[in-house]
């Protein structure tokens, strides 16, 4: 599908593309969260041989929307003991990075017919910046502020414990996560997610998942595990463990503020899944070249929902981890494994690089500029 580049004064569609992408992402996140919750409830109830929501709308489809509207009109309780300013700030801080983190995530391509008749392809991405992955990592780690501030400002023991646990867990798994991302960067040689995806085009055998077998596969699994832990989802949902912490850091939150933590959680699930799709599963590209006629965003959505299904599947099948087991897994298993695999990938990569024709001794190449500046001493 080729779109002509409509132009209105100084503004044309190509310039507007990032803003269109922005509206798509924010709109998608806000609109899809009720659907995701519905999917989760239905899938879990099917897995547990229950019926699940079935009253509001067909197959209970409107149940979560009704829940959302209800939450909007519920009383906004403000407990006496809370630290008011931070108490109100926390959900906002949890929400902003969740909504913004998708900014550097490309989810499709659009082809434009330019004025001179040529056809050009543009990625659908808000910020096509060369530090895309770092931006997402930064945003992902900002989310922990919302959580820990919520836990602290509530002045409730359960909230405090939940907030502390959540932050310790998130930062523990962020290490393995960023090391896994680093391996993808090493495979593709760029921090820009658009370039990372473009390096995986033309068929699923080019995906990073299958690069350097089996290292790519192992590091993908590491990323997926830390992705689940990073978003505090089952089986790593200790911060929100209902049975011991009464929902943890948002015990004291009611009405829409409560819903915002929920939405932030689902939004960040979408974002980290989107990152996984872009890094390991070929992003918006089709798995087989002959399926290229299907638009990119459909492939992206399919992969995204597949990962979301994995989330739900994990939640339905696995029991919650003990806290020390969680920490052991993060620090003692995943961190060293990820580092070693990163190193192995670097070695393999070096071996695969063909020898340059006019090979110089190593030291001369790398030290040459510095030596040249020194002149003859």
């Amino acid at each position, binding site marked *: 599908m080729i779109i002509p580049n409509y132009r209105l004064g100084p503004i044309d569609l190509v310039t507007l593309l990032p803003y269109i992408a922005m509206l798509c992402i924010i709109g998608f996140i806000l609109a899809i969260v009720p659907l995701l919750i519905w999917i989760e409830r239905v899938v879990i109830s099917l897995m547990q041989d229950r019926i699940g929501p079935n009253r509001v709308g067909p197959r209970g489809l409107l149940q979560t929307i009704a829940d959302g509207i209800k939450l909007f009109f519920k009383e906004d309780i403000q407990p006496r003991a809370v630290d008011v300013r931070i108490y109100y700030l926390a959900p906002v801080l949890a929400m902003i990075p969740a909504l913004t983190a998708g900014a550097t995530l490309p989810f499709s391509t659009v082809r434009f017919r330019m004025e001179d008749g040529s056809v050009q392809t543009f990625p659908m991405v808000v910020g096509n910046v060369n530090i895309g992955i770092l931006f997402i990592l930064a945003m992902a780690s900002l989310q922990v502020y919302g959580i820990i501030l919520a836990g602290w400002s509530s002045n409730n023991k359960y909230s405090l414990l939940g907030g502390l646990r959540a932050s310790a867990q998130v930062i523990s798994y962020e290490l393995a996560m960023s090391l896994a991302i680093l391996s993808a960067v090493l495979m593709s040689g760029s921090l820009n997610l658009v370039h990372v995806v473009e390096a995986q085009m033309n068929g699923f055998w080019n995906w990073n998942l299958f690069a350097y077998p089996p290292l790519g596969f192992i590091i993908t699994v590491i990323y997926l595990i830390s992705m689940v832990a990073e978003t505090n989802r089952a089986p790593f949902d200790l911060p929100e463990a209902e049975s011991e912490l009464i929902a943890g850091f948002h015990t004291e939150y009611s009405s829409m503020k409560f819903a915002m933590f929920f939405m932030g959680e689902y939004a960040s699930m979408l974002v980290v899944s989107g990152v996984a799709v872009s890094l390991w599963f070929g992003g918006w590209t089709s798995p087989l070249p002959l399926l290229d006629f299907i638009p990119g965003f459909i492939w992206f959505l399919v992969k995204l929902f597949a990962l979301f299904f994995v989330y739900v599947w994990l939640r339905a099948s696995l029991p919650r981890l003990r806290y020390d087991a969680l920490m052991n897994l993060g620090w003692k298993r995943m961190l060293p494994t990820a580092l070693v695999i990163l190193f192995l990938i670097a070695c393999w990569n070096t071996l695969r690089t063909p020898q340059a024709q006019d090979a110089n*001794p*190593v*030291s*001369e190449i*790398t*030290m040459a*500029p*510095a*030596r040249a*500046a*020194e002149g003859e*001493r």
Partner: protein
Amino acid sequence: MPGSPTIWDDLTLILPLIVLWITSFVLLLGDVVVWKKNRDLNPILAIVGTLIALGIAVYQTISLTGDKAFARSLNMDALAQVSMIALLVTGLLAILLAWTYLKNRGLERGEYYPLMLLSVSGAALMGAANDLIVLFIGLEILSFALYVMAGFSRSDIRSEEASIKYFLLGAFASAFLLYGIALVYGATQTTQLSELASRVHSAQTPMLVAGIGLLIVGLGFKAAVIPFHQWTPDVYEGAPTSVTAYMAGAAKIAAFVAMLRVFDSLAPVSSVWLGAIQALAVLTMVFGNLLAIAQTNVKRMLAYSSIAHAGYLMVAIATLAHRLDGPRGAQAGELAMTGSLFYLFAYTFMTLGAFGVLIYLSNRGKDYQQIEDLRGLVRHDPRTAYAMLFFMLSLGGIPPTMGFMGKWQIFYAALSGGEIMLAIVMALTSVMAAFYYLKIVYVMCFEEPREAAPAPAQFSFGASLSVLLSAAATILFGIMPGLLYTLTGLVR
């Protein structure tokens, strides 16, 4: 291409540092896993590592293989190598001192020696820095290790206080230094010291002045120059004595060698900073000595005395400012350079010796810290008392000792550089200093001991060897300074 320097040449130049690093890694992991309970291996291995590093450093210095390394970020010239030798000697003496001291106090945790070796390497990096960033990194490596070591006695609340105080103030001073580096970079577009020297003259902006001011604050803190000295007495008193001994020597050497380098390359704009350095030197000499008089605790007294010695060394730095004022000034600058290196050697030997005597005495079970504790020492432990006597005379700058030779060299450099005022203040305050050093001698030798006869000191091989070595060096280089001149003379 033969003759073109490679990465291996660079690595060879810092071989002593690499030896230190490997030794500390081996110690760190070995203590946790391999020889868990056999704690005597730690100091032995540390000594072996330091000796190897020292041997390499001495060989490299004598064979005059100094060169700039790592894309000109390190300047392993004679100054760097000689200061590295001084630091390694300090480390060696301090390891010997710590051996039984730590054992007697149950502080024999495996981290002590790795931390010390790492901080030696940081200090050596500082001395070898040709780039302000490397200088900063060296400073941080040195300081982090020292913060931890100052709080090494975890059950002692004063040790904890010393650690926290040192850490907070040190972090603050590091921020000053870093900001100063940033401003100097902003004014001159370079952080390399050798580049700085050629560019600084045409970049005399308020930014440069502010940057140099902040550099003085940051380095002055490490060197314990008044008014940035507040941490010194508390940290010296609170930290375990073996740490204090090491810290007094290593931090001072590193800070002053770095200062020599920085102000050597800032000499073209000496009009900017000379006044400040002169004022700091006078303040430090006068108040360091005045405050030392009032102390009743030997560790605190030695802390203030270390401040006073920093003042004398500041005189040398002020003299460096005249490096570019004709041949006479150049000669004075060279004298200041070699003289302050000699002085740093002397200071190390006598301070480590003085603390070593305290450590040796502390092997009796109680900590010897108060001047009162030394009362009548000569009656029941004459050899130790005489060692202390030598160190006190040397610290006070009385002729046949090393301290006199060092002080005399700086004095002479200041006179020939035209810093008459500073030279006079230096002479006067040295007389003042003799008072409190001789007070200890008086208490030791001419007063009756309070107790009849305390338990004889448990013999400690490490501490006695260390004290013996320091005393021998103090006297030997005092009588025959030429032996050390051959080393320090390489710097010019």
